[in-house]
């Protein structure tokens, strides 16, 4: 039946006058695909192409003639029982305009082209043999020639390695390189004998990998395919493997970090491992995203916005994958978050003959940069005023874009110490929240507090966070937070 080492099948043909009797041998091997053979038809030549089913079950071979420089095709498909043959007289198909399986015909002027034979029902291990005969009616020569069988190599599992958390189901694929077309094709259906080297880590009872617990294992499968070794293309059993690493999701870094408060439509990348195929990112309050894409080691969050209600400073982020949640990782939200004292000076007030306490601060962002030229305001409250004179009040900055830090992130606060009020040492308590008003100066309102001062304003001294001046000035470099 055409198998290697069996009797060779021979096709026999004679002309009408039985002048020429010709024989052509069939291929010794079977294949799922024979390609690269040529046909030739003109006034003195004809080509016969044949194939047969050498298998033990019915199959549907397809003979395809390529012509018009390979741009057009003529296709014949027919179901063959075991042992049956299919013959295609190319000259007759042209001359008699015989329609193919799709109703197309070969143009009458067509003379040459290539052909292939394909086993439509057996994509990995075919059962077709091939034969071809070209007759030269001028000189009585018969030229034989066959196409080459087409096989596979580079058989791999996809993904080539798997890393993810426990509790994940992931489908595997088998891909092989089809040497005739030079492309990776999906031959997953040929897989059998799926197995895992350690079922306590991951199981692979079929193409679906299931991760069980933290550890390493190797997934494997078998695939019987025709090997790309023309002319025989023998059947070969391939055994692609897949390293499997099951691990708890871990966050190693963010990009950017910190992320600026108030941004919108930006992206945030989370790097790490064990994210699996569909991780859930647990973001802190005030951070939202519109979508995400991920691999086992990276999650890219798209359309990220950080509202002004978010907390400037360190925020915890976790990733949940499968049944596991990562340890919290710190994502900084950047924005003004502290005041650093630069000077604390007592001198004569501007425009008045009594003393004032001037305290200059540099406002710093969470990432340590200077908060230069940012709109600022105060949310200040007083209590316990106990002077006999009417309270002269104070001027406070509002979130109205009127007040900003300077180009060095500095601001100066002025406290009057007017000794004309009685009784001596009278005054009031104070709580002063210095705030950032957002990039526009009035968004949000109220602002975001970056420094809080608590103390009192008396006729002879001012208390700022425990530093009562005179005589105790705030040392340069002292930090006041929200």
């Amino acid at each position, binding site marked *: 039946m055409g198998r290697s080492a069996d009797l060779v099948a021979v096709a026999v043909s004679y002309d009408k006058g039985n002048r020429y009797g010709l024989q052509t041998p069939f291929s010794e091997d079977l294949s799922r695909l024979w390609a690269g053979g040529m046909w030739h038809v003109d006034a003195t030549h004809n080509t016969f192409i044949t194939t047969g089913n050498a298998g033990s079950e019915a199959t549907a071979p397809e003979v395809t003639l390529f012509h018009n420089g390979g741009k057009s095709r003529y296709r014949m498909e027919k179901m063959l029982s075991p042992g049956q043959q299919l013959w295609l007289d190319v000259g007759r198909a042209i001359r008699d305009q015989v329609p193919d399986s799709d109703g197309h015909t070969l143009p009458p002027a067509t003379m040459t082209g290539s052909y292939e034979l394909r086993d439509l029902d057996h994509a990995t291990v075919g059962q077709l043999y091939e034969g071809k005969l070209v007759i030269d009616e001028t000189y009585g020569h018969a030229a034989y020639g066959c196409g080459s069988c087409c096989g596979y190599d580079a058989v791999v599992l996809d993904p080539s390695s798997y890393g993810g958390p426990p509790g994940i189901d992931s489908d595997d694929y088998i891909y092989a390189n089809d040497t005739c077309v030079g492309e990776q094709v999906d031959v997953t259906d040929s897989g059998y004998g799926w197995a895992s080297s350690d079922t306590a880590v991951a199981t692979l009872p079929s193409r679906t990998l299931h991760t069980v617990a933290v550890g390493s294992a190797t997934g494997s499968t078998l695939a019987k395919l025709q090997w790309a070794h023309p002319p025989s293309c023998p059947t070969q059993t391939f055994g692609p493997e897949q390293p499997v690493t099951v691990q708890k999701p871990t966050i190693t870094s963010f990009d950017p970090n910190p992320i600026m408060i108030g941004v919108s439509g930006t992206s945030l990348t989370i790097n790490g491992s064990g994210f699996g195929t569909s991780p859930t990112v647990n973001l802190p309050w005030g951070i939202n995203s519109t979508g995400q894409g991920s691999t086992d080691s990276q999650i890219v969050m798209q359309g990220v916005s950080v509202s002004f209600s978010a907390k400037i400073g360190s925020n915890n982020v976790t990733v949940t994958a499968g049944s596991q949640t990562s340890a919290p990782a710190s994502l900084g939200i950047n924005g003004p978050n502290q005041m650093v004292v630069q*000077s604390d000076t007592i001198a004569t007030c*501007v*425009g008045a003959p009594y003393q004032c306490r001037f305290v200059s601060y540099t406002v710093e962002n969470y990432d340590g940069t200077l908060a230069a030229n940012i709109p600022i305001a105060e949310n200040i409250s007083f209590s316990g005023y106990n002077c006999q004179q009417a309270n*002269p009040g104070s001027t406070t900055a509002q979130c109205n874009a009127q007040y900003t830090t300077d180009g060095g992130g500095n601001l*100066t606060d*002025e406290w009057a110490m007017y000794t004309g009020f009685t009784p001596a040492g009278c005054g009031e308590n104070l709580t002063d929240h210095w705030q950032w008003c957002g990039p526009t100066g009035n968004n949000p309102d109220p602002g975001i507090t970056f420094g809080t001062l608590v103390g009192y304003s008396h006729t002879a001294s001012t208390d700022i966070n425990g530093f009562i001046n*005179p005589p105790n*000035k705030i040392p*340069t470099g002292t930090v006041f937070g929200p």
Partner: protein
Amino acid sequence: MTFKTLLAMVVLLTSALAQVQGTITGTVVDETGKPVAGAKVHIAQKDVLVIHQIVQYHETDDGGHFRISHVPWGTYVVVAGKESAGYPAPVFASFYSNYAMPNVTLAEDFPSADIIVKIGPKAGILDLEPVTDEATGKEIRSASVTLRRAANPDSFLSASTTQGRVFVPAFAEVLIEISAEGYKLWPSPGQAAEGKINLKPEEVRKLRVTLNQDPAVTTSEKK
């Protein structure tokens, strides 16, 4: 309410607001009369007691010009400075400057004013090393440095020694005092000459001071 009535009210309101706010423009120049770009200008209403306020600065342009709008009627003192160029912060102008601070009055009849603000001379610099306890050698971070003009000891400025560098009025005899709670004053009475300096503009004088604990205060604290 008709549209015309509403429009009339808006016009009246706008007019009223315009009538109580004026504009101060001017130029900051140095002791040679040269305009100072990037100087900070501050205005303070004269003789009006305000317990607390943020000090608002207005920066001069490349030609030394400044413009301050929406200033309510009143009399203002205008001060200027540029620390990066050696002119102390505007709020300390009364202590450092050798020039009178301009006064400006805005009123209905004088809604705007254009002035020259002269600053200078540049200050000298007192470069303070950390003040330490004579006995322990430890830094006294609560120490203060007080500067007084010898010609007018009531005019003073007191800052933290942790600043390191402190501006000192130039071309003037200045008395320096270093103090801290629980410590004796430096220089000690009778040795005031130790704390007397007279610097030229931008001249730097290093100063290293150690303070002795004040037994009286220590005894008091022990009680």
